[in-house]
């Protein structure tokens, strides 16, 4: 490798305009490459080409989604914005939750790496999102993971799922972050393309918000955390093979995997180190190193600041020998952060890092002017206007076309499917449904996650929402849930996105928390497919319009395109996370019944004959078609207000929202989680099958102490929320009775509900 003597410097590039460059292999289009040449007034150096190519990738530049995502900003009103301290465009959105506390949360996808190497892919997905939260100056509080796999009984799912779950747990558990929720969904469209979306929530005092800005000429740039190696340089290795022409070892690099191995211990000490640095007030700006590594961190810090930046790449601690500047700049080695520090604070900064045994190196300085300049072995290898790398990437107006098959899909409703009739068939359907992979207990998964660590988890799986205490004195805390029903989105992406929002919102309000903000992780097929872009556009609009109706803003999110196996795209999967606030977590409403003797069960909301796209149609008939349940966001909001009021006044002893699997599923879960029996009395005027299995939105099953029943139902009536007394808690019976249909012992229900995942994956 010592055979390379020529560094592709800026001056070299200026004098060799015709050197052919492998921009296509790096994923740049002809016109994109031309634009880089135009910006620079010469050909880019290898290092510059590497930087532009990673930063202008779909993942970093949002080039296909930008024009649609704008809609979030356009629809956010001043009122919705009132509590937002930082929004879209920052590393993560930040909201004011009162009492001087600010909360930040964000989700990110790590889909493809998790297919290639399930354990490490999922693990580094968690690691990456946690660093995003730290880059806001927050202490990470908890994580959630939203997962999608191929059919539960497919052999490859047996490879992918256990690895992903172990990876999420392995990393998160070792960081000491409680896992407080998520999803596990199976559908054949995810078979060659699982989804691994990780969400992290963090908290800070509002005045400690650290934005990623490199301001103040003369301030130092410090890289700290792990060394930089050859991990994840993927495509950039073509550059190495170009310049190391004929060199065996370099040619070998072409095969480098774009998979990284995580080191959660290093991240754990990095967290503690960052928090101590924040506490001492010696961080001017901070940025995590995620996808696109140093390219991203340096160009984003410089472009958001008020000056330029000079980096001495020779100072970056390396783990591999013979790395080129392009490789160093695009390495995705994990567990690294970059900070901007005043010269007078550098010694203190380094001392804190030394205390935590965290490697830290001054690699550059904030300069006058507006260029990002990077030197290597005494030559300048990068000299660019940083905004052109970080913020002024290409923007595409991709063709959008509603697919023709959409009409056929919608016309093919579930009405023609054979429904169970009679008590015996209903009972059999219920047992089959609760044991089906999408409805069965998730405890095989969630038992692998520590939800106790740090002692602030007030609700976690199998509750509808995770609730974490932030302030031990006052009891202030947050509730958070993620949801998406991809089948509904396939039938109608606009409405499907709103249904996902509605469900996530409902999951938060059933804990008694007040929703304040929304994040998302939008997983779709290929952006080059006009039908996929239509799904995307519709989902974004549905979500944004839904947020306006609910009065809470989208504060950030993530887009993942190209999730498909061959030509088959995944179900459109806009995972929606809703964050809520509890002024005192002691008033949280649990999910299981039985906390008080003799509770009454009430069903809030209305049930319609809505079974298109339902779990029942999927499990029993393998059917998907028709129109999804209707959404009424005003009703969802009212439902939320009533649950919050009920929680404040201590009128509700348990609440569980209805979603996939309908009332039957919710009733079984609330009994099993509460380890208490109940009797359900169906409405004689409505089809029992519809009542048990329809998936109408806007419904919650609540348990109220008998003494509170009149007061609570009067409140519902007065505010126009339909409710129906639908049963009683029966602590003595040890069974769930659905009057006129069946009586099933909790033991039998538990076996059916809990047996499935262990049977498939142990």
């Amino acid at each position: 490798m010592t055979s390379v003597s020529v560094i592709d410097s800026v001056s070299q590039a200026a004098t060799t305009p015709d050197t052919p460059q492998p921009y296509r292999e790096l994923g740049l289009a002809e016109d994109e490459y031309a634009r880089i040449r135009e910006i620079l007034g010469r050909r880019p150096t290898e290092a510059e080409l590497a930087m532009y190519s990673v930063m202008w990738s779909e993942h970093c530049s949002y080039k296909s989604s930008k024009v649609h995502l704008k809609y979030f900003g356009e629809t956010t009103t001043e009122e919705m914005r009132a509590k937002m301290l930082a929004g879209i465009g920052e590393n993560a959105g930040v909201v004011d939750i009162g009492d001087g506390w600010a909360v930040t949360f964000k989700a990110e996808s790590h889909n493809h790496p998790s297919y290639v190497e399930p354990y490490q892919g999922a693990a580094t997905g968690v690691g990456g999102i946690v660093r995003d939260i730290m880059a806001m100056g927050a202490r990470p509080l908890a994580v959630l993971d939203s997962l999608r796999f191929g059919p539960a009984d497919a052999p490859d799912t047996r490879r992918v799922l256990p690895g992903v779950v172990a990876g999420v747990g392995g990393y998160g558990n070792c960081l000491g972050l409680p896992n407080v929720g998520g999803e596990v969904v199976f559908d054949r469209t995810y078979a060659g393309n699982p989804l691994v979306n990780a969400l992290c929530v963090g908290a800070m005092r509002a005045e400690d918000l650290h934005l990623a800005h490199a301001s103040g000429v003369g301030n130092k740039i410090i890289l700290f955390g792990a060394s930089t190696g050859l991990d994840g340089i993927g495509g950039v290795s073509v550059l190495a093979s170009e310049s190391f022409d004929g060199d065996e070892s370099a040619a070998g690099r072409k095969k480098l995997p774009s998979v990284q191995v995580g080191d959660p211990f290093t991240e754990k000490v990095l967290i503690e180190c960052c928090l101590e640095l924040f506490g001492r007030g010696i961080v001017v700006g901070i940025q995590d190193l995620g996808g696109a590594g140093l390219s991203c961190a340096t160009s984003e810090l410089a472009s958001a600041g008020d000056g330029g930046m000079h980096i001495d790449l020779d100072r970056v601690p390396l783990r591999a020998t013979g790395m080129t500047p392009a490789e160093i700049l695009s390495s995705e080695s994990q567990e690294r952060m970059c900070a901007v520090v005043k010269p007078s604070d550098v010694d203190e900064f380094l001392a804190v890092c030394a205390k935590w045994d965290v490697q830290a190196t001054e690699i550059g300085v904030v300069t006058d002017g507006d260029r990002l300049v990077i030197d290597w072995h005494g030559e300048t290898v990068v000299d660019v206007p940083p905004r052109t790398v970080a913020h002024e990437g290409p923007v595409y107006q991709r063709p959008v076309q509603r697919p023709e098959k959409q009409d056929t899909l919608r016309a093919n409703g579930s009405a023609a499917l054979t429904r169970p009739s009679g008590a015996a068939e209903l009972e059999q359907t219920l047992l089959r449904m609760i044991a089906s992979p999408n409805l069965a207990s998730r405890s095989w998964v969630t038992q692998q996650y520590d939800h106790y660590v740090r002692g602030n988890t007030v609700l976690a799986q199998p509750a509808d929402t995770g609730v974490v205490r932030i302030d031990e004195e006052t009891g202030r805390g947050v509730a958070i849930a993620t949801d998406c029903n991809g089948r509904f989105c396939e039938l109608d992406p606009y409405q499907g996105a709103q249904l996902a929002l509605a469900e996530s919102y409902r999951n938060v309000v059933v804990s008694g928390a007040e929703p304040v903000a929304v994040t998302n992780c939008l997983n779709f097929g290929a952006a080059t497919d006009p039908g996929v872009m239509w799904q995307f556009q519709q989902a974004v609009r549905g979500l944004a319009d839904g947020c306006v109706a609910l009065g809470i803003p989208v504060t950030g999110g993530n887009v993942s395109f190209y999730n498909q196996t061959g030509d088959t795209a995944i179900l459109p999967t806009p995972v929606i996370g809703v964050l809520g606030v509890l002024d005192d977590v002691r008033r949280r409403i649990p999910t299981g019944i039985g906390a008080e003797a003799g509770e009454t069960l009430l069903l809030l909301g209305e049930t319609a004959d809505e079974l298109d796209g339902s779990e029942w149609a999927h499990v029993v008939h393998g059917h998907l078609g028709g129109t999804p349940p209707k959404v009424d966001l005003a009703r969802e909001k009212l439902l939320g207000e009533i649950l919050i009021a009920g929680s404040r006044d201590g009128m509700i002893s348990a609440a569980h929202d209805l979603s996939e699997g309908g009332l039957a599923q919710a009733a079984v879960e609330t009994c099993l989680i509460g380890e208490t029996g109940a009797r359900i009395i169906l409405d004689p005027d409505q089809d029992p099958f519809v009542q048990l299995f329809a998936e109408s939105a806007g419904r919650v099953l609540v348990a109220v102490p008998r003494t509170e029943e009149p007061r609570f139902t009067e409140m519902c009536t007065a505010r126009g929320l339909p409710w129906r007394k639908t049963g009683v808690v029966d602590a003595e019976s040890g069974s769930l009775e659905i009057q006129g249909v069946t009586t099933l012992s909790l033991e039998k229900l538990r076996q059916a509900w809990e047996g499935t995942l262990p049977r498939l994956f142990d």
Partner: protein
Amino acid sequence: MRIGVITFPGTLDDVDAARAVRFAGAEAVSLWHADEDLHGVDAVVVPGGFSYGDYLRCGAIARFAPVMTSVAEAARGGMPVLGICNGFQILCEAGLLPGALVRNAKLHFVCRDQWLRVENTSSAWSARYEPNAEILVPLKSGEGGYLADKSTLDELEAEGRVVFRYVGENPNGSARDIAGICSQNGRVVGLMPHPEHAIDPLTGPTDDGLGMFYSALDSLVAV
């Protein structure tokens, strides 16, 4: 009373252990792994987590930390020491307790609420419980299977040094359902489950874990 809580790089449950100490009415003193000084504490808790990432073997690196030299010496002098989860692993690695902890039988990390029976009520950390009391506390570990050779196990049983035993299905393949043991003099106790996460029904399954911390305070007063 002052109870020290050690923090190694990678320790996670130190804040919880400190909170439990405070809930029990004592002062929690944080002890740093690199500092030999025990700052005059009356007892020590070695909390859970993943010290140094636990990549080699749980507790294998932490036991060499300077603070552990002092803890070992103090333990020999009769100071109550409680090792929880990773702390238990560290005490075994350090030779303060016999045996070793290995991967769970099903190879998965397990986080769940676990019933335990208190079988020894004379140790420094269990005297507050009724004999054979059953308590519910979280268990969360990937390498929680307790192992020792047969003669060691027999000796532990014969000397009544099995302090806590799992009730119901064995969660991790531990020999003889052992969840926690103590030293010969009953001053050093190690267990895999987490009493410090069972101090308040708001954030844990019960407050059954507080008894361990009260026990230590009792034993200190009695001395």
